[in-house]
């Protein structure tokens, strides 16, 4: 990163000069440099759970354990009652919500790799599809219940993650991304060609998870998955493992000489994030009831990636939050302008481009710099949870 900065100094300077003229950016810049690390070190180093402190409520303990802030918790509660609030009680909106929650969960798993060890797993959708196929084939050929199938799918995808993690070990940056991309392409090719097993592009019809027309059970299932995955990922990155992730993501040599075994952490990261994708793939298959190799397509990864990046990388929650409005806007445009097919994609592309140019930090960055630290104490508690005395 430093290198790139050096590469274009004239431009950089120009923009810096611009910022210099406006006091607003000056402030934000300052708060930026302060903020980023504080929240990190707070999260990791200074657990609020110190013995003997009496002022901590059960809620705080709960929040600390699950990695939520009060506002986040409120969001989850909102999601839980969503199917009963008009207009969201309509089946088709529920269908969108399910898709949004699915993408949200995917983005959590994706960000777990991209945002922490700094490797974009470009074959993420393929891994997801792999899990879906595993579970579906088990259900179809062996009559296995989707509940177990999904878990086996997750396990199977975890093995895949292990392999990707192993083979991409010596690669960095864009090379590792390409490797996982090619891996995904090969996987998709296999799904296309192994017709006897997957029915290829003909589409594998999969038993649905709940034999009901209603979307509600699926909705709750995906929300549970989303929340569980978030808590799990958050728990991992808050632990010392997260520190190791960041270290190997930012400087492999320095991390190694500091005693971090990159093989273990990298492979662990891939394994976990791929396992999550596999589980989600199983859900996807048993919800939409049909699988084609198309689910493994790069464009699916791109969709997840766009959500994760617009949400803000390295935050886990950014993508999960932004997925809902994002998918909704896209779907509304698509369904109202169905005579102009692709217009929603044009808008989505322009949105992605604008965000990347003008706000590459994404939503979580915006939130952290502009919303997170209001003067009002109660509001601050609401947004951040209990703060440590140290900060």
């Amino acid at each position: 990163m430093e290198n790139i900065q050096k590469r274009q100094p004239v431009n950089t300077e120009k923009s810096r000069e611009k910022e210099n003229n406006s006091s607003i950016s000056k402030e934000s810049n300052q708060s930026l440099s302060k903020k980023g690390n504080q929240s990190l070190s707070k999260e990791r180093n200074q657990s609020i759970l110190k013995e003997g402190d009496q002022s901590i409520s059960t809620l705080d303990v709960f929040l600390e354990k699950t990695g939520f802030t009060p506002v986040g918790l409120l969001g989850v509660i909102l999601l839980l009652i969503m199917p009963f609030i008009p207009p969201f009680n309509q089946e088709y909106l529920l269908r969108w919500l399910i898709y949004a929650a699915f993408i949200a969960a995917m983005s959590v798993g994706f960000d777990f790799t991209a945002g922490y060890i700094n490797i974009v797993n470009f074959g993420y959708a393929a891994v997801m599809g792999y899990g879906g196929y595993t579970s579906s084939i088990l259900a179809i050929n062996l009559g296995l219940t989707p509940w177990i199938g999904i878990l086996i799918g997750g396990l199977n995808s975890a093995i895949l993650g292990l392999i990707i993690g192993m083979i991409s070990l010596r690669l960095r940056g864009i090379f590792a991304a390409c490797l996982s991309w090619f891996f995904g392409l090969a996987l998709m090719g296999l799904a296309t060609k192994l017709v006897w097993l997957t029915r290829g592009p003909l589409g594998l019809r999969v038993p649905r998870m709940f034999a009901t027309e209603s979307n509600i059970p699926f909705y709750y299932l995906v929300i549970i998955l989303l929340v569980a995955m978030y808590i799990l990922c958050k728990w991992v990155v808050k632990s010392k493992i997260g520190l190791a992730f960041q270290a190997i993501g930012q400087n492999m040599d320095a991390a190694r000489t500091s005693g971090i075994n990159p093989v273990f952490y990298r492979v662990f990261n891939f394994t976990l994030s791929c396992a999550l994708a596999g589980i989600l793939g199983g859900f996807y298959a048993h919800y939409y009831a049909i699988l084609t190799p198309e689910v493994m397509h790069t464009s699916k990864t791109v969709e997840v990636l766009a959500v994760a990046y617009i949400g803000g990388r390295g935050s886990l929650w950014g993508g999960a939050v932004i997925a809902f409005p994002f998918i909704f806007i896209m779907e509304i445009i698509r369904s109202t302008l169905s005579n102009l097919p692709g217009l929603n994609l044009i808008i989505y592309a322009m949105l992605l481009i604008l965000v990347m140019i003008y706000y590459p930090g994404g939503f979580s960055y915006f939130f952290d710099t502009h919303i997170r630290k209001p003067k009002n104490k109660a509001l601050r508690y609401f947004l951040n949870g209990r703060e440590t005395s140290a900060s």
Partner: protein
Amino acid sequence: MKDTANIMIVLETKNLTKQFGGLTAVNAVSMTLYKGDVMGLIGPNGAGKTTFINAITGLNPPTSGDVIFFGENTTGLPPEKMCRKGISRTFQIPSPFPKMSAIESVMTATVFGNPPGTIKDPVAHSRKMLEFVEFPMSEDVISEQLNTVQLKRLDLARALASNPKVLFMDEMASGLSEGELLDIMKIIRKITGQGISILMVEHIMQLIMAVCNRLLCIQFGTKIAEGPKDEVANDPKVTKAYLGSNTDEKNKAEELVAEDN
């Protein structure tokens, strides 16, 4: 007699060689580092000093030869294992974790470089390290905002955080003014005071002469001298190859090697 000598030996290399394609960057270098040593590694640019360190610490494993650390053959072990065994290093071009705060950068080594459970309070330990190297900035500053000199301090703190027995320093003092050299000298003395042996690559003879007790000089990847600092510094081979004359280096070096054999 022999035994006691062995105890004193911290690190040994035997015929350590590293080749890049056709180029032999380090050529059969054997050396010994004793407990309490501050050994200076000198040599012209491109002599293979950094490569030598990389080969020992495992970042760029040697092509042949052995590394023996406290009597154990550690050749080719990956850097993370070396770190846990007690070998730390800083980088010539310091490269900490750009998006981490200073304290977090140090914490990585505190947490992962020490046997699990030995450090009760990693934050306090890391903070101590920063204080130890007299890190001039707030511990919350993000690494990418530091300048080279500050980065070097941070890198040193990181290297020390894993409680090493041997510390390799690659051009820690480059770019420092004479006044600042005094500070770094003090820190180096403090490090030795903790019983850590040091092998430092440095071009600033002033510093070398001030803090080192022994010197190792290599040229074209080949060792040309090793021993007490004054001995080496006054060795005509060293003065010719490194400190002085400006004649055709390569021929001279070959002659020297020939003379040696």
